[in-house]
C-alpha cells in the first residue's frame, strides 16, 4: 500500500509549469486560490472606481460630473461587481488556498472543475463590464434589478447582464460543490467534524447556502429573459404577472447571499482573534451551532427587504419576528469573540487590528440591522441612506475587513515573506478612518430622509454627503497602498518562519513558508 502511495507521490512531485499555461491549465489549489484573490482584487478596484464616481457626483448638491443615466449604471454595477466579483471570489480564493491546508488535504477534491469555476469568472465579468460601452448603456436598475424596471423598461444590454449572472452563478455552484466534496471527503485522519477549524466550518455551511440559492437566482434571471424575449409575463402585471413575485424570488436568493458574504468572515475572525489573544477560541461548539442557526434563519427572513410592498399583516409580523431572532446567534458569536480576548495575552499586528475593527464595526452594522428588522420603523428607514450605511458596515468593515485581515494573516504562509508591519498598520488606520468617515454620516442622511440611488439631493443632506465623499476617497486611495504592500511582500521581505505567528494553531502552520507547491501528499495525523 505504501509503495503505491510513494509511486503516486513521485508522479506528482513537480513544480508549476512555466509561463502562461501554468495559470490557464493549472489544477493546483494554491495557483487557483491566488488567481481568485487577484481577480477579486482587480474587481475590487474596478468597483471602487465606480464608487468614487458616485461619491464625486454626490459631493455637492446639483449635477456636476455624471448624468443621472450614467449615475444609475454606476450604482448598479458597483453593487454587482463588489458582491459577485470582489467579495464572493475573494472568499472562494481563501477557501482554495486554506481549506486543503487546514484539513491536511493534498488539493481540492475536484481540481479540474476548480480550474473551470475560476476561468468562467473573467468571461462573466468581462461580459458584464462590456455592457457599459454598449449603445444602450449597461444595467441601470440597481443590483437588486427589480422587475419591471429590469425587464420591460431595461436597456438592451440586460441580456448580457443575465448571461453574466448565469455564468457567475455556475462558477459559484461549482466552487461550492468542490468545497463541500473536499471538506467531507479529504480531511486528515482524526479530524472529526467537530475538530475542524472554524474557517472550514463556516465555509462548509456557506457552500450549502450557495448550492441552495444560486439556482434560485438563475431561475429569476431566466424568467426575466423569457419576459424580455419570449413574450412570457412572469413579472409583467399587464400580462397577468406579478412584479412582487420577482422580489420574493430575488430575496429568497438575496438574503442567504448576505450570509454567504459574512459566514466565512466569521471563520476568519475566529482564527485571528484566537491566535493574537494566544487563547483557544471560546465556545467552539456554540460557534458551530450559531453559524448553522444563522444559515437556517437566513432562509425564512427574506421578505424583511420588502416591508413596504404591501404584504398582509401576518406576513409582516412573521418576517419581523424571524428577522429579530437572527440577533440571538449573531450575538452569541460576538460574545464568544470578546470572551476569547478576555484574559488573553494580546498583541496587535495588522490582521488583529482588522479583526478587532471587524467585531466593532460589524456589531454596529448588526445594531442597525436590528433596527431595520422592526417593521414599523423600517417604513421610515427603507430605501434610505440608513440602509446604505447598514450594509456597508457589514460588507465593507465586515466582510472586506475580514478579507484584509485574512490576507495579512496568511500572506507570510503564501509568499514566505513577512509584510511590512508599519505599512500594514498604516493601511489599517487609513481604511478604518476612511470607512467610518464615509459610512457613519450615511446613518444621519438616511434618518434625515435621503433616499438611496439618487444622483442629486436636497440641501439639508449636503454636509453628510460631503463627509461621506471625503471618507470614500481616503478609503479608496489607501487601497493602492495595500497593492503596494502586496507587491513588496511577494518580491522581498523578511523570511517567514513555519509557524509565522507565535503559538499559531492549525495544520497550515506546520508546512514550510512559503507553502510548497504540493502539500500533504501524505496525510498528517490529527490527534
Amino acid at each position, binding site marked *: 500500500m505504501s509503495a503505491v502511495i510513494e509511486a503516486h507521490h513521485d508522479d506528482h512531485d513537480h513544480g508549476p509549469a512555466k509561463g502562461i499555461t501554468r495559470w490557464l491549465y493549472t489544477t493546483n489549489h494554491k495557483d487557483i486560490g491566488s488567481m481568485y484573490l487577484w481577480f477579486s482584487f482587480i474587481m475590487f478596484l474596478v468597483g471602487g472606481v465606480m464608487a468614487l464616481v458616485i461619491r464625486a457626483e454626490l459631493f455637492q448638491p446639483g449635477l456636476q460630473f455624471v448624468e*443621472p443615466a450614467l449615475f444609475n449604471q454606476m450604482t448598479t454595477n458597483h453593487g454587482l461587481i463588489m458582491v459577485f466579483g470582489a467579495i464572493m471570489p475573494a472568499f472562494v480564493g481563501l477557501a482554495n488556498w486554506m481549506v486543503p491546508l487546514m484539513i491536511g488535504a493534498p488539493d481540492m477534491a475536484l481540481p479540474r472543475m476548480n480550474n473551470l469555476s475560476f476561468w468562467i469568472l473573467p468571461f462573466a465579468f468581462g461580459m458584464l463590464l462590456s455592457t457599459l460601452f454598449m449603445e444602450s448603456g449597461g444595467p441601470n436598475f440597481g443590483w437588486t434589478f427589480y422587475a419591471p424596471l429590469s425587464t420591460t423598461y431595461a436597456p438592451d444590454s440586460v441580456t448580457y447582464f443575465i448571461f453574466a449572472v448565469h455564468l457567475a452563478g455556475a462558477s459559484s455552484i461549482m466552487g461550492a460543490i468542490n468545497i463541500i466534496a473536499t471538506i467531507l471527503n479529504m480531511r486528515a485522519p482524526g479530524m472529526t467534524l467537530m475538530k475542524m477549524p472554524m474557517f472550514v466550518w463556516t465555509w462548509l455551511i456557506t457552500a450549502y447556502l450557495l448550492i441552495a440559492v444560486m439556482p434560485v437566482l438563475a431561475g429569476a434571471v431566466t424568467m426575466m429573459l423569457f419576459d424580455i424575449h419570449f413574450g412570457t409575463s412572469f413579472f409583467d*402585471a399587464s400580462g397577468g404577472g406579478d412584479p412582487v413575485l420577482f422580489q420574493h424570488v430575488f430575496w429568497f436568493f438575496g438574503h442567504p447571499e448576505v450570509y454567504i458574504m459574512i459566514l466565512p468572515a466569521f471563520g476568519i475572525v475566529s482564527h485571528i482573534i484566537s491566535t493574537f489573544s494566544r487563547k*483557544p477560541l471560546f465556545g467552539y461548539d456554540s460557534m458551530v451551532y450559531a453559524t448553522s442557526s444563522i444559515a437556517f434563519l437566513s432562509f425564512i427572513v427574506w421578505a424583511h427587504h420588502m416591508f413596504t410592498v*404591501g404584504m398582509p*399583516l401576518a406576513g409582516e409580523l412573521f418576517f419581523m419576528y424571524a428577522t429579530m431572532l437572527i440577533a440571538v446567534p449573531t450575538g452569541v458569536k460576538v460574545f464568544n469573540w470578546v470572551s476569547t480576548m478576555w484574559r488573553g495575552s494580546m498583541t496587535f499586528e495588522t490582521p488583529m487590528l482588522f479583526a478587532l475593527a471587524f467585531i466593532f464595526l460589524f456589531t454596529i452594522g448588526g445594531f442597525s440591522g436590528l433596527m431595520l428588522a422592526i417593521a414599523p420603523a423600517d417604513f421610515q428607514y427603507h430605501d434610505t441612506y440608513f440602509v446604505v450605511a447598514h450594509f456597508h458596515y457589514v460588507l465593507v468593515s465586515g466582510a472586506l475587513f475580514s478579507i484584509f485581515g485574512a490576507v495579512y494573516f496568511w500572506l507570510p504562509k503564501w509568499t514566505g515573506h513577512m509584510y511590512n508591519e508599519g505599512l500594514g498598520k498604516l493601511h489599517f488606520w487609513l481604511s478604518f478612518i476612511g470607512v467610518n468617515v464615509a459610512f457613519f454620516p450615511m446613518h444621519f442622511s438616511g434618518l434625515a430622509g435621503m*433616499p438611496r440611488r439618487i444622483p442629486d439631493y*436636497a440641501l*439639508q443632506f449636503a454636509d453628510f454627503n460631503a463627509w461621506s465623499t471625503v471618507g470614500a476617497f481616503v478609503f479608496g486611495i489607501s487601497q493602492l497602498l495595500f497593492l503596494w504592500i502586496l507587491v513588496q511582500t511577494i518580491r522581498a521581505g523578511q523570511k517567514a518562519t513555519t509557524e509565522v505567528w507565535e503559538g499559531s494553531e492549525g495544520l497550515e502552520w506546520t508546512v514550510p513558508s512559503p507553502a510548497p507547491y504540493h502539500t500533504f501528499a501524505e496525510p498528517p495525523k490529527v490527534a
Partner: protein
Amino acid sequence: MMSKLSSIARTVLATLCVFAGAAAVAAEYNMPVGVTDVSREIQELHMTIFWICVVIGVLVFGAMLVSMVLHRKSLGATPATFHESTKLELLWTVIPIVILVVMALPATDVLVKIYDTGGEDMVVEVRGYQWKWQYKYLDEELNEQVSFFSNLATPRGQILGQSEKGENYLLEVDNELVIPTDTKVRFLLTSNDVIHSWWVPDFGLKRDAIPGFINEAWANVKEPGVYRGQCTELCGKDHGFMPVVVRVVPKAEFQQWYAAQLEASATEALAMAN
C-alpha cells in the same frame, strides 16, 4: 490596575454623555417625530431600540476595550486557558431573547395600527409615473372626482448649477397634494409603469406603488403645514427628481379649495365636450 479601570469607567461615562447630548441637541440628525400618531409611535420605537443597542454596545465594546487595555502581552499578561462556559453561553442566548420579546410587543402594536386602513373620511389615489405623481380624489364609490399631476418644480438651471439653489431644492412641485387636517385619509397606491414608492417622512408613511397592485395606507394629520418627501424606489433615470409634497390645510380651507377644483374640472370637461 484600579486606576486604569476607573479611568476606563470615566471614559465610558464621558462618551455616554456626549452621545446623550448629541442626541438631544441634534434633532435634525435623527428620524423626524412627524405629525401623525403613527409617525410619533414609530419614532418612539426607533429611539427605544436605539438606546437598547447603545446599552448593549457599551457593555460589549466596554468588555472589548478593557480586555484590549489590560490583557496585553506587552503588559506581561499570560493567557488564561478557559474556552467554554455553558452557563455564560446560555445566559447570553436567553437575555437577548427576552430583550427581543420586549421589543417585539410595541412594534406589533404599531404595525397593527398602520394596517388599520378602514373607517376613512376620504380616499386619494396615488399613481406613480416615470417621473411624476398623479393624485386622484375619489368619492364614496371610488369614482374619480378631481385629478392632477404633480411634477418637480425646481428649475433645470438650479440642478445644473447655473442659478442659486432655492430653499426647497428638489423638494418642490407644481401641484401639491392638498388634504384637510383631522381627517383620516386613505391612500390607494399604484403605478402606471415601474415600481415607485411614496414617502412622506413626517407622516411615517411609505408604501410602494406597484403596477397591477393597489396598496393601501392612511394618515390623519393634526397640524396644518407643507410636508415633503421623495420617491424611494429606484424607478429609472429621474428617480431622484419626483418629490412628494403634501399641503395639509384646515377643513374649511380644504372644502373651498376642493370646490374650486371640482368647478375647474367641470369647466374642463365641458370644454372637452364642446
